[in-house]
């Protein structure tokens, strides 16, 4: 039985634009259905998306999306893609629903199906009332939603969203993130979301690719990271530390003890936190502070920036 292809597979991908190398030999496989793309400005996120879409040809290496090479099988790949660009992308004089229908027909839907899907997509993104207005009269947030509608109307297999929440107020942003999650959960659609807002990525993605200066700073599986974090404790204790450590290790925990009663504990899957409290009580040890280590995406991102020598890795 053939192995399931990775969602995105990078193999020594190098992209040069205007005589400069923008992406430097990216290699890695992203296997989950919801992938976040992070990086500071100029890291190469948009260039990577444009290369995935076949807008830029790789100078070296290749990138495969859902098993299709973006350069040699570009047309077949684009048949599977729904793309929401970062910048303005609409035809201002067309009504919203006609614009989405137009785009769906270009994607290959027959006119009657395209019309039906355009109405559905517009109602789905919450622009049902505004669908007969020219897109040029929409507010910034409405234009973002119209872009999302045209990206989903033809029922793509992979949805590429470039900075989808740009220019949206907090309630609109929340609604859009909910929509993206709904789309992800309601079907087998894959998602690639590029954003400078870590929260957007954290709320919608399972895996994250962090770029810095056109190189991969980190590929991190957020699902596994979250699972691991649930079993990682930081504590400050007072009392019989050695006996406490020994008892925890007897339970299967891994302990690292530091000065002034500080310790880190990695618990096995079958051990709950109340076991730790019980052992501490049995040994007469006071637990003065206890934290689940919560490696947020921000920590992961900052670590990735530092590891690649970017102490100032700001977003």
């Amino acid at each position, binding site marked *: 039985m053939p192995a399931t292809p990775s969602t995105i597979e990078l193999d020594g991908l190098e992209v040069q*634009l*205007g*005589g400069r190398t923008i992406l430097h030999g990216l290699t890695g496989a992203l296997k989950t259905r919801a992938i976040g793309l992070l990086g500071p400005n100029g890291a190469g996120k948009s260039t990577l998306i*444009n290369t995935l*879409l076949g*807008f*830029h040809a790789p100078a070296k290496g290749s990138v495969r999306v859902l098993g299709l090479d973006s350069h040699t099988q570009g*047309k*077949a790949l*684009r*048949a599977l*893609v729904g*793309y929401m*660009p970062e*910048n*303005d*992308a*609409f*035809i*201002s*004089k067309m009504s919203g629903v006609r614009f989405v229908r*137009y*785009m769906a*027909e*270009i*994607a*290959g*839907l*027959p006119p009657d*199906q395209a019309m039906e*899907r355009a*109405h*559905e997509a517009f*109602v*789905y993104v919450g622009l*049902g009332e505004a669908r007969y207005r020219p897109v*040029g009269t929409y507010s910034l947030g409405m234009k973002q939603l119209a872009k999302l509608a*045209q990206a*989903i109307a*033809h*029922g793509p*297999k992979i949805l*590429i969203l470039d900075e989808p929440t740009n220019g949206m107020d907090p309630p609109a942003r929340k609604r859009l993130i909910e929509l993206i999650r*709904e*789309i992800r959960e*309601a*079907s*087998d*659609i894959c998602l690639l979301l590029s954003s400078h807002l870590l929260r957007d990525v954290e709320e919608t993605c399972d895996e994250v690719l962090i770029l810095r200066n056109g190189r991969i700073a980190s590929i991190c599986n957020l699902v596994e990271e979250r699972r691991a974090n649930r079993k990682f404790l930081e504590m400050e204790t007072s009392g019989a530390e050695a006996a406490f450590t020994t008892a925890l290790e007897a339970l299967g925990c891994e302990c690292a003890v530091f000065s002034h009663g500080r310790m880190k504990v990695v618990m096995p899957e079958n051990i709950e936190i109340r076991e730790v409290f019980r052992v501490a009580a049995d040994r007469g040890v006071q637990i003065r502070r206890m934290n689940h280590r919560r490696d947020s995406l921000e920590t992961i991102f900052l670590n990735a920036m530092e590891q690649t020598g970017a102490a100032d890795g700001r977003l």
Partner: protein
Amino acid sequence: MAVYKRRYNSYAGSLTPDWSRFYVLTRYAFADLFKSRAFVIFFILALMPTLGFGAYIFVANNKTVQLILQMRMGDVLAVESQYFLYFLLSQSWLAFLLNCWVGPTLVSGDLVNGALPLFLSRPFSRAEYVLGKLAVLGILLSCVTWIPALLLFFLQGGLASGWLWPHLWMIIPIVFCSLTWVLLLSLVSLSISAWMKLRIVATGVTFISFIIPAGIGAIFNGIMRTYWGDLLDFPQLFQAILASAFHDEQFTGAARFDQVPIPMAWATLVLVCAFALFVLNARLRAREVVRG
């Protein structure tokens, strides 16, 4: 699925064939164009000369009507090659005006708000995009040039017995020369539309792109006492090519031009088309790359 059910559904229905998708652009462009009453009136007016030329053929082949009118139409202009030459020259100017109206709207509207990445992120190539837009102009301009010319040709062939077969060769210059003019006009206006994002500017530039070079050519001719400046006068080049294709030696426009070789006229038109394609290739990109 009813529209009130707010749930995302993937699409599993049928798809249109790949080769037919360029025509979506054409269809939508036609729908937009024919929404304008002014355009519909102009398009109808552009078809009026065909009725006039058709009426002339009818009268020229109808002795009774000629008797009533007390004139012999053959004395004015015989329905021969020169008749079709006049028809195509008059229609080529109408095609030019139609092109100035329609051409500039076609690409600039997609570029001004960055819609091009949306087209090109679908299974749709730049060539298909250009083909779809070219088809708009190709169909419209054909409707006022070679299609009515062929209708007139076959009208004459039907009314004048024994006329059709000896004149069958005229079909080639009618179709081929007209299509050359249509292609030239379409490519020039599309490239200008791709270059100028503002429609009104694009319309103006499309109009003067045929007038200003002709003026420069005339000045060059005047100063240098030559006729090579006519190579910048595209309508004049088309006229020369058409006259040559119809073997018309007496045609006034061609007589002035007969010292510029026809192959040079062809080469100039081909060069202009190639330059227009180069501009389209440079401008119609999903993403602009800043060099340096």
